[in-house]
């Protein structure tokens, strides 16, 4: 079984937010109304964290695409009272929306703060409501959601491979954000395959994993920028 992971080169990231848009569209992530944004209730599976360093005139802005780190030892799944969030057989941290009771314990336990709660019923502009992705279930008010590494794409790729009677090829499964990145700043694949780009990037001297000292074993690696 591959160990799916992602690597992001922050030196290549231009902060264009194509990944953010691709993610929203792929995963039926609702738009936030201005009121929701004011209350701090945006739902985002992937967002661009902006870090500003230094003071004028020597200011440096750094971008970091932030998403679920798909920990190998996820703090969120341990505390869930109903196993609505769990690590699935592919090693991805998954959410079962129909089982979520909306206690938000997982969101509080996540040290990366990447889980979103549906405070309100999600709404889409009329034109977009018709073009929702049919592979991804639409959530409703009262449940938690977060990045799934586009696991529906993995399901589809596996089914395709099975229909053709062959093994899954690693490159057949790519999350929408990785696919959309125009700067090739994101790579995705099997961390256990030494020939894969994601494994090579993850072994780079610039590689860092967020809050690794907590023992969460995140499967997203960042390649430090500006070194």
């Amino acid at each position, binding site marked *: 079984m591959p160990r799916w992971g992602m690597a992001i080169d922050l030196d290549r990231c231009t902060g264009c937010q194509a990944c953010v848009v691709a993610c929203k569209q792929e995963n039926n992530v609702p738009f936030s109304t201005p009121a929701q944004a004011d209350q701090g209730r945006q739902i985002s599976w992937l967002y661009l964290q902006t870090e500003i360093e230094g003071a004028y005139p020597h200011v440096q802005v750094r971008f970091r695409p932030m998403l679920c780190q798909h920990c190998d030892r996820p703090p969120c799944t341990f*505390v869930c009272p109903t196993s609505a969030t769990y690590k699935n057989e592919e090693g991805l941290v998954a959410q079962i929306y129909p089982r979520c009771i909306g206690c938000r314990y997982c969101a509080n336990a996540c040290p990366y703060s990447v889980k979103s709660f549906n405070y309100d019923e999600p709404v889409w502009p009329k034109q977009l409501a018709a073009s929702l992705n049919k592979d991804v279930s639409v959530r409703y008010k009262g449940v938690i959601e977060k990045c799934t590494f586009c696991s529906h794409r993995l399901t589809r790729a596996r089914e395709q491979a099975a229909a053709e009677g062959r093994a899954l090829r690693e490159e057949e499964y790519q999350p929408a954000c990785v696919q959309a990145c125009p700067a090739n700043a994101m790579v995705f694949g099997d961390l256990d395959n030494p020939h894969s780009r994601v494994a090579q990037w993850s072994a780079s001297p610039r590689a860092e994993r967020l809050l690794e000292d907590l023992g969460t074993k995140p499967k997203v690696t960042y390649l430090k920028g500006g070194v």
Partner: protein
Amino acid sequence: MPHLDSQQALQQDGALFRPIMKTGRGFYLAASLLLAVVVWAAYAYSWQLRRGLGVTGMNRPVYWGIYITNFVFFIGVSHAGTLISAILRLCRAEWRRSITRMAEVITVLVLFFGVGNVLLDLGRPDRALYVITHAHFTSPLLWDITSLSVYLTGSTVYLYLPLIPDLAILRDVATGWRQPLYRLLALGFTGQKHQWHRIEKAISVMAVLVIPVAVSVHTVVSWVFAMTIMPMWHSTIFGPYFVAGAIFSGIAALITAMVIIRKVYHLEEYLRPVHFNNLGLLLLVMTMLWFYFTLAEYLTTWYGHEPVEMSVFWAKFTGTYAPLFWTMFVTCFVIPFAILSRKKTRTVTGTLIASISVNIGMWLERFTIVVPSLSNPRLPVEFHMYHPSWVEWSLMAGCFAAFILLYMLFTKMFPIVSIWEIREGREVAVPETVERIKTYLPMETKGEVAT
């Protein structure tokens, strides 16, 4: 064992029967006011059910607010009864007799509101039972459900057992629709020797059993926080810190209830200054214990000076939550310590002021444990201040009102001071205690004179 002479009990301790037999206009007035608050809260909840948790003030990352604060607070107050009453019973503290019942009722009633606040907090309350049908054993929330249901069962039994002889007395003197009810609940108790023997044995067994259960309940409540790796939640001291805080707020709630009952039902003869003095001393001990735990918790954090912990620390000490934090310190320590450490101020009024202060302070403590940690996560996120909405305040008011209302109804149905235990104290315990004290001492025997 005392005689179950119901008519004599009615003559001697008539004051204890009066709340049940006579209901004045004041009661109906207070009850309808409280009922109005409860109805308003029910409306607020239907509002929340229809629109979702968006009607609260919670956001990202402050996913828990005053519902969870109330949950911890109410479970804390529940330690008023069962634990204090069980400890006093086991220590044979004779002054317990008039206060055990009113303490035990607090426990049973307030537990419902503790659990209820978790349900209010759920995004999908219709799925609450999934916690049992899809139980996930590593979740501290499940441990909570388990220990809370054991505690609720245990403390209900512990309230009911000492109620049985009183129900038998009431059965003998009551008239009208109440009579069959008391007959049913009294389980055929007639005061025979073997019945007394059994009930006393059952009470002492339960008194021993409920103590570890009570301790476990608040420990597990603290573990909901301490088991995560959130800054200033992930603390090994949380179990005992929460248990001490629970007993602290429990005693305070008990004193508050005692003062009100004493005043409203004119039970000055049963709830005497000595009761308030003794409970006041107990509250003083807990005040100092609270200070010790708080000092230990914050000093180790400050000395270690880990950045993630310090951002929460400063948020409480000098930042956004400083007004709440320092109010908590004054109301949990300065005020009660100043009042309770002097005999002159350890009066009925003095202990009442200290108790109200402690109750406010302990609620603030729960709030400043829940919210500041959530507001200061490890990684930078967009921060939005949490302001509870009208729905949250309404539901909180509704919980308090419903609790007081149910408590009032209890005093109208059952004696709020244990009749038979008062009589037993008078008839049996006075000579027994004299004998007991003699066994503590080397008594001089007749004819032997030291030379």
